[in-house]
């Protein structure tokens, strides 16, 4: 049987992952002949890691998803530096920017999203960005930042969402003086309530980041900075635009595929055209949000199951929303939608500790975590995420759940006098305090004699201090 020809438009994190998942199921291309079309000149890379590249801890080469010979080794027809410009659904043909045409059995949109540049005077010119203005989206953007802004240069970041704050933190770590301009009353307003955002803002200021809230950029003056809507100016050698993205749906819409804030897909990740699928940031599925990589990778696994026939019953049912701010020194996790009013049946716990830059809010329904904000509680956040992802019943000790490891039980601190007689002092040899007391009363009064008599302390030796303390206590009180 002739293999099904699958053409993937887009060689970003979603497209590359889909190719990997297909080849994992069909390593020799017996079931799927694969063509991948990528607009950028270089191979796919891991966008999640761009903050590390900007911060300078990671080489650009380290973020690549595939090695040099990947396409050859995995029988993939990889077309780099070209884009799809025209799509004929009826004939199953897609035309590329280099003039070539590709016929397909199945077409997959993995075109991702593009930065949304606000209509601010001076930011863009001829559809591109002005000199001294960059987005924070591609490896090329990182190179541009590296080229344009020396360490120590002043940088204005437009947008205080996840991407904006990650960029700001990375740039501050690189030694830049960073100001974040954000139109809402608090940063991360999509994810956080006001109290959490205030704690986060303080943590960001600790890292040397300045925040200008409730302000929008009015004008960009090259070489000078950004003029804000209140007339003030943020001096900046470079402006980084992080004001959101929009799904790249232009070609799909032109071809007549249904799109509304993304190419609409069902649980088979199928669009309104039966031979066309979409996944990742360009797609819209009711079970998740865009802008995160986990849904794209979950979708890639399902779509690969379907396209290779490995598991024809595979369906994508959504991905639970977990957002993490990847910013050095700041540990923030949000689960679900923390803006939803909890309602009377909900259990809400809150811990507000601004001085130590900590905030926790936990909402449970039917004993299960439905949303949470965890700032400055990294290990509690890890446990909560686990419960949330797997829909597990939460432990009844809510306080421990909320604070994680912050309250360790320290039994060793118990004084020798306070230990019950049944307390096992030496686990290696099952020696209780009572046994030591008996031995002491029978004449073993030093640590060595107690060890010889009871074997306490002769295993791992970890109880030596306790044995000594008990001997001292007996000597004092006898």
């Amino acid at each position: 049987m002739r293999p099904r020809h699958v053409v993937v438009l887009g060689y970003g994190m979603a497209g590359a992952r889909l190719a990997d998942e297909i080849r994992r199921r069909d390593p020799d291309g017996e079931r799927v002949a694969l063509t991948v079309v990528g607009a950028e000149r270089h191979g796919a890379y891991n966008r999640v890691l761009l903050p590390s590249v900007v911060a300078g801890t990671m080489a650009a080469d380290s973020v690549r998803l595939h090695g040099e010979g990947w396409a050859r080794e995995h029988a993939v027809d990889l077309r780099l530096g070209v884009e799809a410009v025209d799509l004929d659904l009826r004939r199953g043909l897609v035309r590329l920017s280099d003039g070539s045409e590709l016929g397909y059995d199945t077409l997959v949109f993995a075109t991702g999203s593009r930065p949304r540049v606000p209509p601010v005077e001076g930011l863009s010119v001829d559809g591109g960005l002005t000199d001294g203005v960059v987005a924070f989206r591609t490896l090329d953007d990182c190179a541009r930042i590296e080229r344009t802004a020396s360490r120590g240069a002043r940088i204005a970041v437009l947008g205080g969402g996840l991407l904006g704050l990650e960029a700001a933190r990375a740039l501050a770590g690189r030694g830049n003086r960073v100001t974040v301009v954000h139109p809402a009353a608090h940063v991360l307003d999509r994810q956080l309530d006001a109290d959490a955002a205030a704690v986060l803002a303080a943590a960001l200021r600790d890292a040397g980041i300045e925040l200008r809230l409730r302000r929008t950029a009015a004008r960009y003056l090259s070489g000078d900075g950004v003029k804000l809507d209140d007339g003030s100016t943020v001096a900046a050698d470079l402006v980084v635009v992080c004001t959101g993205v929009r799904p790249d749906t232009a070609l799909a819409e032109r071809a007549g595929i249904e799109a509304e804030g993304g190419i609409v897909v069902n649980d088979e990740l199928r669009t309104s055209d039966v031979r066309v699928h979409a996944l990742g940031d360009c797609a819209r599925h009711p079970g998740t949000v865009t802008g995160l990589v986990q849904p794209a990778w979950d979708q890639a696994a399902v779509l690969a199951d379907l396209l290779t026939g490995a598991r024809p019953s595979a369906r994508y049912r959504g991905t639970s929303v977990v957002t993490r701010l990847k910013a050095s020194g700041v540990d923030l996790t949000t689960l679900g939608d923390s803006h939803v009013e909890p309602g009377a049946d909900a259990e809400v716990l809150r811990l507000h500790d601004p001085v130590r830059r900590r905030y926790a809010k936990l909402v449970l329904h039917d004993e299960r975590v439905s949303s949470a904000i965890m700032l400055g509680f990294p290990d509690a956040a890890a446990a909560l995420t686990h419960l949330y992802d797997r829909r597990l019943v939460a432990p009844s000790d809510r306080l421990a759940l909320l604070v994680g490891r912050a309250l360790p039980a320290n039994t060793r601190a118990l004084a020798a006098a306070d230990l019950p007689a049944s307390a096992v002092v030496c686990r290696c040899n099952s020696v209780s305090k009572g046994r030591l007391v008996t031995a002491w009363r029978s004449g073993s009064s030093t640590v060595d004699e107690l060890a010889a008599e009871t074997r306490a302390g002769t295993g791992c030796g970890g109880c030596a201090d306790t044995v000594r303390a008990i001997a001292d206590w007996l000597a004092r009180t006898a």
Partner: protein
Amino acid sequence: MTSMESPAPITELTESHCPYCALQCAMTISSAGAVSPRMFPTNQGGLCQKGWTSSGLLRSPARLTTPLVRARGMLRPAGWEEALDLVASRLTEIQAQHGRDAVAVFGGGGLTNEKAYLLGKFARVALRTSRIDYNGRFCMSSAASAGLRAFGLDRGLPFPLTDLGEADVVVLVGANPAETMPPFMRHLRRAADGGGLVVVDPRRTLTAESASLHLAPAPGTDLALALGILHSTVADGLLDENYVRRRTTGFADAWRVAAAYWPERVERITGVAAADQRRVADLISTARRAYVLTGRGAEQHATGVDTVSAWINLALAHGLPGNFGSGYGCLTGQGNGQGGREHGQKADQLPGYRSIRDPQARRHMAAVWGVREEELPGPGPSAYELLDALGTPEGPKALLVFGSNPAVSAPRVAHVVDRLSTLDLLVTADLVLSETSALADVVFPVTQWAEEDGTMTNLEGRVLLRRRAVQPPEGVRTDLDVIAGLAHRLGAPGDRFPTDPEAVFAELGAASRGGAADYSGVGYERLKAGEALYWPVRGEGHPGTPRLFTDSFAHPDGRARFTAVDHTGPAEPADDDYPLTATTGRVLEHYQSGAQTRVIEELKAAVGAVFVEVHPDTAARAGLADGELGKVVSRRGEVVARVRCVPSARPDVVFLPFHFPGVQRANLVTNPALDPMSRMPEFKVCAVRLEAVA
């Protein structure tokens, strides 16, 4: 019954080592059979409760002192000649009727080097069967495969144990030495006191209690955790690039996989905080001396080899292996787990850690054994596969078991017992009537550690001599006697199967000469003189090799290899029907299948029966309270166990110790999914549910 009284008129003291784990704590045994700890670098004068009470087994009324032969369904005492003749003639019949591979041999990691060697030779030369494997397959085989792959050579610790005492950072992955080899903990004190002891374990074990940082990943996700820490290492600029360039190959491919495992993603897979993953990377990179050590928790998975490889990759990324005062190691479990895997009781190996597939190795061994090369059988199936095939039309019809108790220790154990019951002939050599021996047709009573001479190779690759300290009970013989007795009856020439341990060891030395685990320079005289000999010891004048890899690794190009490994997760994940994950392990008071330790009153009194450790909420949800009997049910079977509520437990995990017999066997529920490379079963993860007992 024969008298157990020692006839020795005056008390003599003999230096020896403990009969249990691979730490081989040094002890002194009196001719009256009393043990006391002895100063030695590995145990530093320490001994755990198992060691202290070990002499109880010497005089236990449970000892077997006469061969047993099954007649009319019952095991009855028989004479040695009668029993040996019977076994030899049945083996001959079975092989005549069904071929040489119709007889299988199953060994153990507790056997001395001499026994392991002679057993392998017996299988290959006297029985000429390819069907031989051993319980080490259920122990450290994954670490062995991963070590070979990375370094070209597998020695549990490629450095003396005492080196650990100088370390600032020790990362222990899936190991619980505070219970399995307590005196080992003495070497971790410096790291623990300095905030550098990291313990990776789903349970808050005694070892985890003493850690500076305890990471509790969901069972079956250790590989992902290692990838996350490797990722942090690179992303935070902590990679030892100079070492990676000079001493390794394959980093780029390994990184390509790890690149997709950033700590926040790994947190969702493992439940271990991203911040903790970064902290481990940071701890290792700032340490002057650091070690990564794995144990059964990392290894006993259907992806055990890859999991160990992932941790080795991390060690390599930080430049640890082969750097003086740093490294990677595996904590071998059984007493002679190290030596037992080197001398030929493994399905694919010949003495000296040689491959049975290697033509040169085959020629060498054929010459040493005085047989033709083509007479040597090829590789056979691994332990579980061997047990699984017993009594089937194509499988073995007879099985000889030495130093093992698969009726308790094998995975999916009810099925294994079912297989054992279909054999035409089951023969064991045993100290006590273990669960496996109780099923046997013939049982040979054999001597144990203090009653015979023999060498053991401890977890650091040091060869130790255990001297005979007490008179064996009348009526028992050594395993070497049993092997030789059968070999002669099967037609082997008189001198081919010596019974004197020193003679066997000399032959082992010659057989291992030139191999990876070269013992040719180790002799009883050097060991008696107290020399610390770590293999390889290449000839009489050779000082041995305490530290491997300091100049180069054992691959032809001298470099260590990164292996690109990816996380796939457990073979049987939890689901709606079986929503919990069961993991199995050990308690301080018992050893392996418990056949030895369960007859010691003091140990039985401390922990006498199986229990199931669960979070109090999980117990409550099953309608159970602490101390009640619960039932742990998997797709393969169920275990009835007393509930032990532990607030530190993960609510999605239950823990069962596997030392107990009958309906208490944890292995009634375990999953025999095998690692493709090491053939290690997945003891550490299977899906279960917890129920009240009706």
